[in-house]
């Protein structure tokens, strides 16, 4: 009797093991299938399609990169699916670094980054490839704070240098004369400043630290700028929500917050205005952010297929004294796509190539107004026209994809 019982439970264990192995194999298949980049089968006889006319043949394209643009990208993908129902666009907000790594490895149809590639990242690209840099959105960072007794309608004034001194830890109290000098008539408290910043690497911090580096030489040499830096003081909180939460939890705190958070949360956290090079204190809104990137690009953007390592929209805006109404901590996010698409390293079918160009074209031309409600200003005309030139240059196996006017 005992013998049979053992046998039966042995069979059960065997069955369980088999089920587990089958599930694991299925999971692995799905994972590798999804990671392969080409989600759907596409007819190889797909006609050469102009991106601006008619419905495209079915294709799935995968993009991935920075988290800053993710809310906007989600609304773009939804709106685009109404225009091109055969095209499935996936976007993974895996971070700019991962976006660059995956476009380099050819596992994405397009990448996204909050900062242009460094020259070392350009040299890591596959031989014979040319990676295009396409600004697809603008954004901005505001100094948000929580000071009891100061009304949210009283927007404190900051300069880049004062912000750098606060975040470097050399200004430690709210009534420091350097803050008071900018804010006459405001009754600043004597309390210590609690500095808050993002703990995760992000394009928001890239833009903010780039701006602080422009404003203050100590910051530039000691801390520098990147998506993650060695913050001299303060507590790190994860994500925009985390920074907002930490500011709300800590009285007398200050932290850099993305403007989209402020707009979608109806200014639930107070934020200040920042002085631009012309000397005006500007409270960020969609108009003055758009003006800022327009001014930053007025001397011309690098060619789409050039190396953008030495280009900084933030530096250009910082140094611009001619435009009086621009918000200084404004920045771009960039789409990254190969100029010469094909099976060689980009792993792209013709239908996917047509879909990528069509989608990016739609994003920079038709999609820009979609962002205003969620806090992203439309790109100015000079940037859109530069992007159009770049997108027209994309080829599939040597043949231009865009054949419209």
């Amino acid at each position, binding site marked *: 009797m005992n*013998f049979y019982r053992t*046998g039966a439970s*042995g*069979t059960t*264990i*065997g069955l369980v*093991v*088999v089920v*587990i*192995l089958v599930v694991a194999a299925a999971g692995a298949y799905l994972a590798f299938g999804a990671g392969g980049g080409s989600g759907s089968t596409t007819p190889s006889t797909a006609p050469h399609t102009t991106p601006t006319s008619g419905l495209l043949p079915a294709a799935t394209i995968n993009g991935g990169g920075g988290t800053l643009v993710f809310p906007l990208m989600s609304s773009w993908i939804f709106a685009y699916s109404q225009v091109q129902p055969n095209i499935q666009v996936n976007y993974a907000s*895996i*971070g*700019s*670094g*991962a976006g*660059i790594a995956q476009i380099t490895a050819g596992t994405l149809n397009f990448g996204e980054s909050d*900062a242009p590639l*460094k020259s*070392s*990242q350009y040299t890591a690209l596959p031989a014979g490839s040319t990676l295009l840099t396409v600004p697809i959105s603008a954004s901005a960072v505001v100094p948000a704070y929580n000071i009891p007794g100061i009304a949210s309608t009283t927007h404190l004034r900051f300069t880049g240098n004062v912000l750098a001194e606060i975040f470097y830890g050399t200004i430690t109290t709210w009534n420091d004369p350097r803050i008071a000098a900018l804010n006459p008539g405001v009754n600043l408290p004597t309390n*210590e400043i*609690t500095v808050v910043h993002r*703990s*995760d*690497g*992000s394009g928001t911090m890239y833009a903010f630290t780039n701006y602080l580096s422009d404003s203050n030489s100590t910051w530039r040499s000691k*801390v*520098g*700028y*990147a*998506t*993650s*830096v*060695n*913050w001299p*003081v*303060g*507590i*790190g*909180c*994860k994500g925009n929500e*985390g920074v907002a*939460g*930490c500011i709300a*939890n*800590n009285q007398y705190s200050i932290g850099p917050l993305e403007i989209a958070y402020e707009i979608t949360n109806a200014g639930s956290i107070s934020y200040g205005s920042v002085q631009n090079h012309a000397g005006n204190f500007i409270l960020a809104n969609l108009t003055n952010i758009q003006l800022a990137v327009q001014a930053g690009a007025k001397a011309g953007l690098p060619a789409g297929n050039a190396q953008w390592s030495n280009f900084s929209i933030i530096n250009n805006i910082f140094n611009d004294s001619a435009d009086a109404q621009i918000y200084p901590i404004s920045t771009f996010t960039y789409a990254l796509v190969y100029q010469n698409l094909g099976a060689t390293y980009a792993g792209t079918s013709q239908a996917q190539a047509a879909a990528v160009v069509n989608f990016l074209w739609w994003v920079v031309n038709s999609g820009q107004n979609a962002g205003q409600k969620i806090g992203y200003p439309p790109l100015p005309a000079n940037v859109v026209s530069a992007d159009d030139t770049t997108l027209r240059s994309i080829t599939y196996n040597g043949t231009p994809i865009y054949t419209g006017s």
Partner: protein
Amino acid sequence: MANLSKSSRRARSRGDVVLRSLVATAAIGIVALLLVLGAELVNNSGLSLTTYGLGFLTGTVWDPVHLVFGALPFIYGTLLTSGLALLIGLPISLGVAIFLSEKARNRRGMGSLLGALVELLAAVPSVIYGLWGLFFLVPVMKNYVEPPLHSYMGFLPIFGTTPIGTDFLTAGVILAIMIIPTVTAVSRDILNAVPNSQREAMYSLGATDWEVTRKAVLPYARSGIFGATILGLGRAVGETMAVTMVIGNAPSISASLLSEGYTLTSLIVNQFNETTSSLYASAMVEIGLILFALALAINFFARVLVWRMTRGARFRI
């Protein structure tokens, strides 16, 4: 046995062969997975290992811009918060487990309701704990728990800094909350497995309830409870999201539990997806390697301790 025919015995043995090869493959697969994981971590952290050597373990600065990497604050943060979690969580878990197995044993309704609740808590995803921690626990700690600790016991270095809410102590508390369900559920099952003859023997000597629990039940179950503790410690060391939300994410080695800190797991979740140079990426993988080694070391010492505790003991669980 005797009535089994030859053919059915052969069929059984063929089944045995299939089963044995299946489970052996699974077992070898686990070992292979561990080896591949370790080899991959060493391989991908090669650049960082050769660049920084042992200095990586003792360095205290983490500067991705200037490529200066030291892991000590993160190792310190991981050990400190996990230790705090055990210190707070273990007595509570044991108390709940003793209540469930010894006191509520004959009160079916209450015991099973509490037991089900404990298991439910263990199933809550950690990011939920993290968000709850950030928006509820942090303000409570900052406004109601930490100020009295600081003002009455601030002369002790462990409470010596101004309370900020996002710190080692809060991280330890949230980790304790997260390991309590695990440790409780396992400990309760172990206490339930203690034979009633043990209790009855003590009662027959005229022992009180507490004496029965302390002198008969707990000693009998101690190696199992220790195992449950290590399970909890493992969860605390590897926990990522909830800690990241409440620890403050500033690399510091401070004796004060009220100052902000950083753990190995938080560093990975915060920075791995934005690593933009090969040396930076390599250093991040080395952080993973340290975490891997730390987890292995904790389990190894736990095994040794259990072995030493139970050596010569007559009963094991």
